[in-house]
């Protein structure tokens, strides 16, 4: 309880108080009540940026499911001896700071980078493609960094799959496709849902990867918030944006939870 109060309630409270405050010209928080930060949040500028951030996160989540599911399934169905090795391979990138891994992508994707020199020397493209500092690079960075968060929960679901149920499906005349869509997918749904949540939520608010890969000219909402706390020196506005983002997550969590419990009943 103390832990919860210290690390969850107190910071949240501080954020809420800050979001209703003003700033002075040095960027210090002045505790006098105002609601103008929240009014400013609904400016179309921020709403557009927020829309893009959601889109990037959704796209990243979708790609993570498409790429992560086969990987998780293969690992989960592999013989137990290889399973641990494969899982370790998924986790190995985590042993390095994600910033370093992101910088590695920069040197791969830049105009004079690895990818372009390969494409050029193979005569696939006549001139280098601008891949860095584009929405493509942002989504790639998100997918790359969050993929393990998708693979691991799906893996735990796949691992627990009851083989007899799949065999039953075949016995009852289902083809592989039917068995997959009617038996395997529903049984591993909890893993997919958990993975999607673990990817989608942090991906919306991510700022470090998106700044490095996006160059700051396609800012995400995470970058805008981070900027308010640093160079833009407007902590109250940043706090207001943060509170709204938190509310949004809370609402989607509640909705998702409700859907899950009704699904259980059904």
């Amino acid at each position: 309880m103390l832990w919860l109060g210290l690390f969850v309630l107190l910071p949240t409270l501080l954020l809420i108080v800050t979001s209703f405050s003003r700033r002075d010209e040095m960027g210090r928080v002045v505790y006098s009540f105002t609601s103008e930060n929240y009014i400013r949040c609904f400016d179309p500028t921020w709403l557009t940026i927020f829309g893009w951030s959601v889109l990037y996160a959704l796209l990243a989540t979708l790609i993570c499911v498409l790429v992560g599911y086969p990987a998780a399934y293969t690992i989960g169905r592999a013989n137990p001896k290889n399973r641990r090795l494969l899982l370790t391979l998924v986790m190995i990138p985590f042993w390095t700071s994600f910033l370093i891994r992101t910088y590695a992508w920069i040197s791969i994707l830049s105009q004079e980078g690895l990818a372009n020199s390969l494409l050029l020397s193979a005569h696939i493209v006549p001139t280098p493609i601008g891949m860095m500092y584009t929405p493509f690079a942002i989504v790639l960075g998100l997918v790359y960094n969050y993929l393990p968060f998708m693979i691991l929960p799906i893996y735990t679901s796949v691992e627990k799959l009851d083989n007899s149920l799949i065999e039953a499906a075949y016995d009852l005349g289902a083809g592989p496709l039917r068995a997959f869509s009617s038996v395997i997918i529903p049984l591993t749904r909890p893993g997919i849902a958990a993975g999607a949540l673990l990817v989608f939520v942090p991906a919306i608010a991510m700022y470090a990867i998106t700044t490095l890969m996006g160059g700051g000219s396609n800012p995400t909402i995470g970058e805008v918030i981070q900027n308010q706390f640093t160079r833009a020196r407007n902590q109250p506005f940043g706090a207001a944006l943060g509170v709204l983002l938190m509310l949004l997550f809370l609402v989607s969590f509640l909705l998702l939870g409700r859907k899950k419990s009704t699904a259980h009943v059904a």
Partner: protein
Amino acid sequence: MKTTRSLILALLPIALAACGPKSTSTTANSPSPASTEEKKLNLYCWSEYIPQSVIDDFTKETGIKVSVENYSSNEEMVTKLLAGGGKYDLIQPSEYTIEALIRENQLLALNPASLSNLANISSEFRNMPYDAGNKFSVPYMAGFVGICVNTDKVKTPIKGFADVFTPAHKGRIVVLDDAREITSWAFAADKLDINDVTPENLEKVKPMLKKWLPLVKVYDSDSPKTSLKNGDVDLGVVWSGEAALLYKDDKKFAFVLPSEGSHLFVDSLAIPKLAAHPQNAHLFINYILRPEVSRKISEAFPYYNPNSAARALLSAEEISNPASYPPAQDITRMQTFRDLGKQAASIDELITQIKAGGK
């Protein structure tokens, strides 16, 4: 289901930690009595500015362990300093920020007796308007903000900001991620005094900024040379030291002082009022002022060195780098940024909004 949930719980902290990577703060223990400070120094400085080898040599000589934290804009540094998040012993503000910090009574008056090497700083840098007589700050490096052009890719002559920010260069430009800087370029292009920041003048330059910023591909104050070097952009408005590094490696990177006017920045070392290790900070400043140390810094980060004793040690090639040492008559024409007081907030807001693509 239970294992899924416990796995999620186990991973959640990692996911959360991944969202906030840049907060690497150091905490100082309570300081020992003034005369015998513990052997620690918490340095808060610009990224890509103080070579690690210089810091290591300082530690080797004095036994003082230096913790380094970086920032990429004065505003960011001030925010963290005033929030009291870290106990910093030494900061590296630029001229207008020094002025603001002095006004806010946030800097410790320096002890001249501990800074025997101050005389190495050339006289024109020892009496700057923001801190006459170096009561609170000692110049570290000076420099300019100018245009860096990849002449292999850009064939049209580039003389000033107006030539950079044209539709032909859309998606090929890198600029500093710094609201004060960006605004000052528009002021210069509009023939306004860069320090005459009033609501009317900001309104005046707004249309120009709204035309300029959508052309920009990369905002980077940490290392604007990276995107130029990698070929992802072809020209940019960058720190002179960054342009000098590019020129040193490859002569295709030309440095141009904008015809509309440029300004001189002076990044200095200063000690925050609440520093826990002010004596160690003095030791570090005096160490940096040594000609051979300052010369090493120039080698790694070729800005305009205000240390004339160090400049005498530079090679002919270093001195002739046009981004490091432009013609003297150009420098004397340059202004420095002054503290803007309340208007600083308007600049922050204006650039935030335009960068985000807003009205």
